[in-house]
């Protein structure tokens, strides 16, 4: 429901600069995902937006109103923490009601809102349990429920799925996506280091690196036209293949990037030739690792039915219009 603008926001702890001047415009109702390697400042940026940390310089605007020094509870935000951060001594109902009780909401109003949120998250039967009697997935739902009942302008998620096991992570990911759909007016900001979560959930992704925004765009934009070698390597799984040295010189660039699905085994008309050193067959796809003499083996995605013996000599061929060329600064050379 809120538009959030960050204008040259900086944060330093003593002499250490963590956020080095971030400009970002998060649209109202948008699902924005901050993604980046550990230590890039994505969690810090979320905490600056939440108000748990003060920004060192710059401006933070919520719907055009400057909130630099506003307390978290006054900003209209709700936060879901990685470790759930439920109050251990309160049952689920009280956990969700705590904020409203502090705000002197009437008991009837509290009951209505808690029950509505509990129903939405299918935890209505757990309301009188203590957090320790819940499973990890249920705890995370309570934490999300605690955020919903606050009826915030902005939802902040700090790696909410990292403590869950793989199956539950996929399921909860779907539920968060559905939640955003159901609460169509809520702005959501989501921090993760998992690029799959970023790709599947985001309206737009903000890739951060060393306290600076590397690129902001829709998942498709980042995937198809990355703004740097860093983004190209970070987004997509398996990682984009990079070629340097003489391989890249053929294409007049310093680094040549090509995704595995844009490569194919082609023995009749090969561009590069090498030996199969490894393969990972996932059933639907077979990722074939071919050593063509570059620093790392090239990963070629083939259909799961394609099988090759280790040590086989093969030729590979890229789709020419899907090559990513980067200059010495890691910036893309557009055609």
């Amino acid at each position, binding site marked *: 429901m809120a538009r959030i603008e960050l204008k040259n926001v900086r944060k330093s702890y003593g002499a250490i600069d963590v956020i080095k001047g971030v400009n970002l415009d998060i649209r109202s109702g948008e699902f924005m995902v901050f993604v980046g390697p550990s230590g890039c400042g994505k969690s810090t940026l979320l905490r600056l937006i939440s108000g748990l940390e003060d920004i060192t310089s710059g401006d933070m605007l919520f719907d055009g109103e400057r909130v630099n020094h506003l*307390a978290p*509870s006054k900003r209209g935000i709700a*936060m879901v923490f990685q470790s759930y*951060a*439920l109050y251990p001594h309160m049952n689920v109902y009280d956990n969700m009601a705590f*904020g409203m009780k*502090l705000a002197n909401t009437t008991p009837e109003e509290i009951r209505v809102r808690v029950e509505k949120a509990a129903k939405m998250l299918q935890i209505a039967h757990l309301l009188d349990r203590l957090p320790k009697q819940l499973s990890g997935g249920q705890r995370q739902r309570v934490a999300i429920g*605690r955020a919903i009942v606050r009826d915030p302008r902005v939802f902040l998620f700090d790696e909410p799925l990292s403590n869950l096991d793989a199956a539950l992570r996929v399921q909860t990911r779907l539920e968060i996506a559905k939640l955003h759909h159901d609460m169509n007016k809520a702005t959501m900001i989501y921090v993760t280091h998992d690029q799959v979560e970023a790709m599947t959930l985001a309206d737009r992704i903000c890739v951060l690196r060393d306290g600076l925004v590397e690129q902001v765009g829709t998942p498709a934009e980042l995937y198809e036209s990355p703004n740097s070698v860093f983004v190209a390597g970070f987004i997509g799984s398996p990682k984009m293949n990079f070629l340097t040295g003489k391989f890249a010189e053929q294409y007049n660039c310093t680094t040549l990037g090509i995704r595995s699905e844009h490569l194919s085994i082609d023995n009749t008309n090969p561009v590069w030739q090498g030996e199969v050193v490894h393969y990972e067959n996932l059933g639907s796809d077979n990722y074939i690792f071919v050593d063509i003499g570059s620093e790392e083996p090239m990963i070629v995605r083939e259909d799961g039915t394609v099988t090759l013996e280790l040590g086989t000599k093969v030729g590979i061929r890229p789709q020419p219009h899907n090559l990513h060329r980067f200059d010495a600064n890691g910036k893309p050379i557009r055609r």
Partner: protein
Amino acid sequence: MKSLQTLAFYLLVLVIVVVSVFPFYYAILTSFKTGTSLFEVDYWPTSFSLSNYYSVFQQGEFLRNILNSVFVATMTVALALLMAVTASYALARVRFRGRGLLLMTILAVSMFPQIAVLSGLFEMIRFIGIYNTPWALILSYTIFTLPFTVWVLTTFMRDLPIEIEEAAIVDGATPWQIITKVFLPLMWPALVTTGLLAFIGAWNEFLFALTFTSSNETRTVPVAISLLSGATQYETPWGIIMAASVLVTVPIIILVLIFQRKIVAGLTAGGVKG
């Protein structure tokens, strides 16, 4: 071999129990004796008479002394916990310059032996004008209890997950609400442990109690017992002293029994992640 080990283990347990319980057991035995049988060495009850207990309350102001002790110890615990909880919140959670130094200073304060500060403290108490009142004892006991209490609670509070506090901040809680509504319920074990130790300390204290009070109405139990006198100045009324000792030990035992499960939880808290 296995059974021999078990046997040795329980023998050791028995020795420890006997060594620690025997003095108290002997005090109970003696408190039931009268006359010359006091000076006979018996290890099993030989006579049973409540006359010593009766005389304790006849002599001086023993009931008053007990109430004094209860009041002083309770107030000390209440004051020490109130100050320690708020101080430990600051020391554990608020970042400020000189926090480490302050913590070390607090620890250093508890190094001074009581006798070293006795005269200074006496002057201070006279200056404030609380000499020969329970407040003199409450003040001095609180001073000596606080460093330990603050340290234990600070360590305990540091181990509470910071996210819980942040969740409360996002929920709109003030620092005072965070302490009272979120932290205190989680800190019960630590509070009970430190509170009980403070209570026992205040209950047993002798030197300050002797120095800072002068009349029988303001004395606490340990001093009152030491000043119990017999019919003549050459007679030590062992039977009455033992009866009084048993009487003042009982409240502590009851408290420990009530809170024992919490104490164990408090002593091990922080060691394991909840």
